[in-house]
């Protein structure tokens, strides 16, 4: 049994001025589980991602990945600890090629030293080749291998989203956070993406948490769902339970007078 990728968030809170963006957020992700985080616009979903990845320091709460505490760590340290993410508003390195974008995430594994770089030692060539091959394999999973040499800004919107996932996988994460991976995709692409996400989870043995607005996708692949509204968890459970939950329906559709 794979026990890596057990992620626990307890009592996570942050306020911006007087606004409680997230309060007392609790979440437990079992290894290799696939969980959805949903909620109306402005519910605080992306803020949760930013808190978990260290972009904002939380006012309160603990983050625990496989028994090690991630509180107060810098985003790059959290990435090293094994949490990778994608961004809602795509953040690629536009002037770098698709392949270079993925190779970037191998840097933290320190494939070779600065001396190897400058002297172009055999180790440099061997490691560079290895990293290229691994990155190409990731691109192949995301069906981007034919575009490896194009600049990432020249990719179509859907492909840019796929590249973000490939790049996040390059860090060999234990937990993968996907921020609206299906936003802006057409229904055909969404179905493909659904399969890809499930495939990634099985192939890379990674725990997945995804924010998504497309209910068909969320209900289709997520094993558990957490619902956030006004920064608070209003429901947690199996997709079936969430669909019938009164509070959730109210949050999305409003209360009938």
């Amino acid at each position, binding site marked *: 049994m794979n026990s890596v990728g057990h992620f626990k968030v307890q009592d996570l809170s942050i306020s911006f001025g007087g606004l409680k963006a997230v309060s007392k957020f609790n979440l437990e992700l079992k290894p290799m589980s696939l969980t959805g985080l949903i909620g109306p616009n402005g519910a605080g979903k992306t803020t949760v991602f930013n808190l978990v*990845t260290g*972009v904002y320091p939380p006012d309160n709460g603990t983050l625990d990945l496989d028994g090690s505490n991630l509180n107060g760590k*810098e*985003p*790059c340290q959290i*990435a*090293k600890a094994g949490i*990778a*993410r994608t*961004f809602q508003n795509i*953040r*690629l*390195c*536009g*002037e*770098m090629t698709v392949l*270079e974008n993925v*190779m*970037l*995430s*191998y*840097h*933290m594994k*320190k*494939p*070779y030293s*600065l001396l190897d*770089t*400058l002297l*172009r030692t055999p180790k*440099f060539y061997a490691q*560079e080749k290895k*990293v290229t091959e691994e990155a190409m394999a990731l691109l192949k999973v995301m069906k981007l291998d034919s575009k490896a*040499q194009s600049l990432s800004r020249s990719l179509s919107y859907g492909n840019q989203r796929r590249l973000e996932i490939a*790049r*996040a996988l*390059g*860090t060999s994460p234990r937990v993968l956070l996907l921020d609206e991976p299906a936003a802006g995709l057409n229904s055909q692409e969404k179905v493909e993406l659904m399969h890809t996400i499930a495939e990634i989870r099985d192939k890379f043995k990674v725990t997945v948490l995804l924010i998504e607005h497309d209910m068909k996708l969320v209900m289709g692949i997520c094993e558990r769902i957490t619902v956030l509204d006004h920064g608070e968890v209003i429901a947690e459970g199996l997709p079936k339970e969430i669909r019938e939950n009164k509070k959730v329906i109210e949050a999305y559709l409003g209360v009938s007078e």
Partner: protein
Amino acid sequence: MTKWTFWVGTFVAVAALWGINYSLEEYANPYIVRVIINCGIALILGLSLNLVNGCAGQFSLGHAGFMGIGAYTSILLTTLSNIDFFQSPMGIGWAVVAGGGAAALAGYLVGLPSLRLRGDYLAIVTLGFGEIIRIFFLNMEFIGGARGMPGIPRESNFFWVYLWAAVTFIFMYRLIRSSTGRAILSIRENEIAAEAMGIDVARYKVVAFVISSFFAGIAGGLFAHYQGFIDPSTFNFNRSVEVVIMVVMGGMGSFTGAALGALLVTLLPELLRVFAEYRMVIFSASLVAVMLWRPMGIMGHKEIWHFFKKKGEA
């Protein structure tokens, strides 16, 4: 490329440099030699600043300050100290390296706190740093103060300047085409994404800054030992701006671009001497023209050989 061809190539290149150096000293017009050497020093400055301004995307306006630190540290050893070793040509070479080291240390000390700032703010801090350095030299009587420092041994020549320019180019080129290079580029492209991919952004900003300062210090040392005389006004704000112009005009992040920019910024004012008092007017107008014609710089992000490859290959 095999090891064997690499060493033969290096040997041929060094021999060629030495040969050119010899013929320049023997036969060429001293004015021409001076312009060629100024080009070489500009190459080192432009290539080094390109790492920070072009590749890492951090706008630094204090490059002349680091050049000054390199220059003054090296003359401290060769001209002011009484150590015999630093009077020999070999010792002067090492004094120049020590100047680079001192500049790198200064780059580290300045970079650590100030690289948390972005864009305009960083530009102002580095500008301030450059001025502090200049004023410091201006008020230090033992290194000449405002009168400057004469009697520096004139040991640097075409050979040493272009050898260092070549070293700078190879260093930068190899650095940027590596894992560390991708980390530095990613800071320019998207800091937040870089951070999320496990790149310690703060660290690599400082790394780029230190490397860049080192080569600026080398350029300063070579300059001092070519001129035989330096004063603090040599390293003023204008000099920093000149280096920024090289990088921006050549294309941010392109090393062949920075080299081209360095040559243009050094050569154009010389070539325009025929226009006498209109010289700088025409020079400035040509800078404006370049920026209008190619806002991303002459090369953009590309290196020169990318233009000769077929489309889609780059």
